[in-house]
């Protein structure tokens, strides 16, 4: 009976990425590249009004048409990539840094520290993310540092949970006991014993959290509460061109398409990673 249950799991354990995963990785790599070089290869200035036609069709020189003021859509998307990916990545990184460190600390200390931290983050996690974002933005106004800090704080409890759960498993293993018996300190235990053994799943977790951050940020921008003009990320691009929706203008469709490809790409990579990378355990 045990052998019968093990069988399907081993079939999933392939080291190479399936085709869907490669496609996803390709899409993600493309957008990350665009975030880095986007502003340098943009054909027109982002603020320049170059088309007399509003919501112009695509033609030579304006590959994706023009937006509601007659600006080049392609250039605006290329420059917006940096805001969409940059802010989300910075926020996710901060969230993982805070949540991850505290999570491992809680797992290793196994005591009152763990209790207090876990209870505290359990409380934080039960506040809907959009609500906390709206309250902070109502109070502080919207700017890039505020957005990064808010999203980082919002996703810290989730990161804490995953990192703690993973570390608790590793912490119960014999080699950690041995290190503890050797008299190693908490910092050493975290750095040398726990971290290397949970690296795969936590990288997957980083990807998922990054997707959430992109979705939250673009929704905020879409509501007009995210990145403020004259700068624009993909969410703001959809918002400012929403009047072109009735004509099915490319200025609305293309930024939406950019968000969808990026998030679906990341999901494709994560879903097709080998089982030992999975942050939710084998499924």
């Amino acid at each position, binding site marked *: 009976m045990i052998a019968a249950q093990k069988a399907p799991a081993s079939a999933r354990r392939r080291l190479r990425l399936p085709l869907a995963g490669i496609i996803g990785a390709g899409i993600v790599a493309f957008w990350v590249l665009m975030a880095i070089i986007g502003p340098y290869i943009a054909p027109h200035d982002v603020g320049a009004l170059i088309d007399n036609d509003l919501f112009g069709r695509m033609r030579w020189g304006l590959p994706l048409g023009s937006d509601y003021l007659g600006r080049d859509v392609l250039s605006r998307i290329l420059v917006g990539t940096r805001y969409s990916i940059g802010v989300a990545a910075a926020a996710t990184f901060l969230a993982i840094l805070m949540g991850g460190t505290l999570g491992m600390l809680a797992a290793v200390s196994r005591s009152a520290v763990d209790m207090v931290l876990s209870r505290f983050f359990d*409380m934080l996690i039960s506040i809907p993310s959009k609500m906390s974002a709206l309250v902070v933005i109502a109070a502080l106004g919207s700017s890039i540092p505020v957005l990064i800090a808010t999203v980082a704080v919002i996703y810290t409890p989730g990161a804490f949970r995953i990192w703690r759960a993973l570390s608790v498993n590793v912490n119960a293993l014999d080699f950690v006991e041995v290190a503890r018996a050797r008299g190693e300190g908490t910092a050493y235990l975290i750095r040398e014993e726990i971290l290397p053994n949970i690296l795969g799943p936590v990288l997957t977790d980083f990807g998922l959290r990054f997707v959430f951050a992109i979705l939250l940020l673009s929704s905020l921008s879409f509501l007009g*509460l995210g990145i403020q003009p004259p700068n624009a990320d993909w969410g703001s691009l959809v918002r400012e061109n929403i009047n072109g*929706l*009735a004509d099915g203008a490319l200025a609305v469709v293309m930024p939406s398409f950019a968000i969808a490809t990026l998030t679906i790409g990341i999901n494709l990579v994560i879903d097709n990673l080998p089982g030992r990378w999975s942050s939710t355990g084998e499924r």
Partner: protein
Amino acid sequence: MAMLTLGFVSMAVFAGTEILPGDVAEAVLGQNATPEAVAGLRHALHLDYPAHIRYFLWLIGIFSGDAGRSLANNLPVTELIASRLPNSLMLASVTAVVSVPIALTLGISSAIWRGSFFDRAASFLTMSVVAMPEFLIATLAVIIFAVNLRWFPALSYAAGMVSINQFFNQFALPVFTLSCVLIALMMRMTRAAVIDTLRSPYIEMAVLKGARPIRLVLTHALPNAIGPIANAVALSLSYLLGGTVVVEIVFGYPGLARLLVDAVSNRDMPVVQACVMIVCSAYLFLVILADIAGVLSNPRLRYR
């Protein structure tokens, strides 16, 4: 635990008001206000008390149904919310009624035929939907149904329902958008819950007895998966609370979330505070409901 969280939320929301730069009284009266007028208003708004006393005054106010007045138009916050809350509840309940049966059917059937083409197509589709922001789905829905097919209006006003037909027209697109995401979320969780139950030893026993896959899932696994499924339904419904924010804006639906977003743009803190408290209470209520459903459906937990 839930009460503690709600208390924490209220403190956080109140602290949010406190860090606002500037003085509310001066902001309301404008630049030409005399110092006496400012002092008078400060007294009327209890601004001359220390923060912790004002916090309790505000908390008592919220619970006794008096959430203060809006800074933007001086209407009582309670009145503003009372005019919007029924609309939001309506939208949420119609969405729930539409999506729960569809999601459960899809989730259970893809668990029955797991690994099949249907299952893989469904899981790719739901993954894509979950990975897309709501405004994207709303935008696509408008392009397809309102612009190209001209079936439904792109805006939804919900001002007095005259006929069934009109009612359907107004709700079609917002409900469609919300349902897409809700069905995707709920279906994934339902499928996971059923498949999780399918790993139990008694399922193995039923397989050895020769039960067919459909019978296996429906009569053997499903009764034991009801707890996790009910849990999944309640958790997905709590998504509706945040999800309506974007949908109400896109379709111009006069609901609570739209009031909240407008208040955030105007920095109308009494309205923001009251709306957030309502949404968070509803959210916590659903989470508790999910826990209760989990306990009720598991006899081992029930009699403990």
